[in-house]
């Protein structure tokens, strides 16, 4: 186990380094720069700006400087938001996105898991059809449509919740539901199919044949194994949802991190492009790493011992 963890950490660092390097050169390769504006700048002004932000340094020097600072944990200043450093942007935006993400994941698990289990248990009964109908909707309706519908109904028509903004819990309800729609539906389907799969396994039949109660068969034998695909999905899901969604944060006007993934590219805000990409990549890699460890507890067939 220890050797597995050490190996994974080394490969995680290498992966991150490759991602950072590729992103750096790709970002610099996009035409235009952070100060490209409709109104052209006089030569002297351009020169001063390049000198101030070290944009006139040779590319390789810019890359080495960036890597040096990255090792120190300093992601540099933002070009677009002069009052902020990239570290500020992540420190301010991530807690907001993560809180919203955590609520959505709780909704997704709280609704998706039971729905999937019931669906599998009542296979082809009306409960199954009911769950599958809504899960199809949840998967196929784009989140901006769900968002607009919720804003219109609960904000404008019923006037029970604010349309957009951030602050108290009231502001989190609509975006959290929107954000949870897809994962809830996906988890329900995933849980259903893996549960059906497990219920047909021989060891379940054995358990039943041994005369175990149905509830024991379901919880102890079936559920634990059926959870593995859901746990696999949870790794990337947590990484994606905790680091913020561009569409949802833009529509609901939420000061999270999600907007920066897209706006930084439009702004050619190199440091923010790099900072947010590296942050997301690190989060994703780490989440997958945790998932791998959780496997070992869920499925006795999976071990990370160094035998063999």
């Amino acid at each position: 186990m220890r050797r597995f963890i050490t190996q994974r950490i080394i490969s995680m660092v290498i992966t991150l380094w490759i991602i950072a390097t590729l992103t750096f050169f790709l970002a610099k390769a996009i035409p235009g720069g952070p100060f490209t504006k409709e109104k052209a700048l006089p030569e002297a002004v351009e020169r001063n700006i390049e000198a101030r932000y070290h944009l006139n340094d040779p590319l390789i020097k810019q890359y080495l400087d960036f890597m040096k600072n990255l090792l120190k944990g300093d992601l540099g200043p933002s070009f677009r938001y002069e009052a902020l450093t990239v570290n500020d942007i992540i420190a301010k935006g991530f807690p907001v996105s993560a809180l919203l993400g955590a609520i959505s994941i709780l909704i997704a698990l709280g609704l998706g898991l039971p729905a999937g289990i019931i669906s599998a248990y009542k296979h082809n009964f009306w409960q199954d059809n009911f769950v599958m109908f809504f899960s199809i909707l949840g998967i196929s309706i784009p989140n901006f449509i769900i968002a607009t519908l919720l804003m219109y109904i609960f904000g404008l028509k019923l006037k029970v919740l604010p349309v957009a903004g951030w602050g108290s819990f009231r502001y989190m309800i609509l975006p959290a539901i929107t954000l949870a729609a897809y994962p809830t539906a996906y988890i329900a389907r995933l849980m259903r199919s893996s549960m059906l799969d497990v219920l047909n396994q021989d060891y379940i039949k054995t358990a039943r044949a041994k005369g175990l109660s149905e509830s024991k068969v379901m919880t102890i034998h079936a559920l634990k194994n059926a959870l593995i695909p859901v746990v696999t999905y949870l790794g990337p899901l947590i990484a994606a949802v905790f680091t913020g969604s561009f569409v949802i944060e833009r529509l609901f006007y939420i000061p999270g991190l999600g907007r920066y993934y897209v706006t930084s590219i439009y702004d050619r805000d190199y440091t923010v492009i790099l900072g947010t990409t590296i942050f997301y990549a690190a989060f994703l890699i780490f989440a997958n790493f945790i998932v791998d460890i959780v496997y070992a507890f869920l499925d006795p067939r999976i071990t990370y011992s160094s035998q063999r």
Partner: protein
Amino acid sequence: MRKKVTLILLVAVMLLAFAGCRETEEKAPMVLRYNVGAEPQYFDPRKATGIPEFTMLLNLFDGLMRYDINGQLVPSIAESYTVSTDGLLWTFKLRDAKWSNGEPLTAQDFEYSWKSALSPEIASEYAYQLYYIKNGEAFNSSIPKDGNYYYPKVDANGELVTDADGNVVPDLEKPFDVNSIGVKAIDDKTLEVTLEAPTPYFSSLLTFTTYLPINKKLDQANPDWAKSADNYVSNGPFRLTKWEHNNVIEMEKNPNYWDKDAVKLDKIVFTMVEESSTELLMFENDEIDWGANPPLPELERLLEEGKVIINPYLGTYYYLFNVTREPFDDVRVRKALTYAIDRESIVKNITKAGQLPATAYVPPGVPDAEPGSDFRTVGGDFFEPYNPEEAKRLLAEAGYPDGKGFPEFTLLYNTSEAHKTIAEAIQRMWKETLGINCTLTNQEWKVYLDNRSTLNYDVARAGWIGDYTDPMTFIDMWVTGGGNNDTGWGNPEYDALVKEAKSSGDQKVRMEAMHKAEKILMDEMPIAPIYFYTRPELIKPYIKGAYTSALGYTDFKTAYIEEH
């Protein structure tokens, strides 16, 4: 026991009722909620460039001059000013005014702000707005080294000398003297400004954010003062009290403002909602009072319901011709394409926000030499809003009768639904009237700008919003090789006229030169004007007294909220 509880409850209810009464007696604070639509880049007036920044800074600060509610330019921090007969020396007498922290505002603050805005180290994008000041450009172009400034080194041909990394090198024999910059505080209340050339519209330039003062003492003690609301000091109608990035900005009435009696709002709450459909929902749900970006597809309904007000906007929407490419090197082709555009149909059926068809380049709303006259009215129209016969004739004359043999070309625009709709309409008009084919290409904003400035296009969409209310802000961009002249076009006569207008202090001479220049531009047609911009905005009917400038910003100094 039960009795006691009842009694306590009764007393509590009565107390609450009284408290309620007191609250209604006190006047509720007057709060305006405005959506500016984008997070401001920075709150340092020396470096601000965008319209959201302008709106915020002009409410936080007060310059030497300010536009009043009727759009009249009036002295503000300046009590009065005089101009020398040659138009070069401007002397401003400052009134007794204070910073929001109570410190007195002095002429030294202005001298310091302008000089530091010009300094190469600050690297302000809008430093060139201060190039009117004597040696302003020289200072901005100088190279700092060991605490001194030097002119850049030039070789025998006048070209800049660069080192191995491509950096411009300082000429150590030619130091730049910071005292030679044409802004000087004679005493606490007198500011003397020397200009490079006579500039009659200099007084209107003084409303520009780059000319606002900053607190010298504060900036020297804490260069990061403009990065948060904590240490922020300004001198205008409002002061910054809260800045939560991409969430909310709050300003409160500045009790130390010299003209505080004119300020009626207690507070302005700014949101930065970028999504226009969200802005509209918030507006209709009474979460904001004013939104700067109504969604275009809803415009017609919103205008009918009286929710949108159309404000003037000093700008022109036009197409660029790349005159370095065939067949656009032929003026007859350029004219044919221009005349074949049905402008009325575009403003009536597509843009729908009261835009005017453009039959010239400089939009209306710029004063001419005679007081009260408008440059556009004096200049008149240069062509018909739609002239298909003349267009056909010119195209035939250029050797492409009914479009036969006309090479296929591309029409470039930056990705946006609005530009796309207009481009499709014009593509159809060219096809139907002239029989020529073009393909549409859209590119992401900065890729498009890059291709435009490197002349990597055939015909491209463009727009220009004036920086100040003088025709020069539109005219001087088309000089040969100008940084904003993305057409490859140039005309020595045009350049001479611009030079003449720039060196004269006589409004008559200037305006005449600029009218002549505009005529050359429209005779040679490197650009096809399409329409003059307007600015539709979501505004609640109870908001009164705000000044919406045709330059794009909004001044809430005298704004108030009517009982509703």
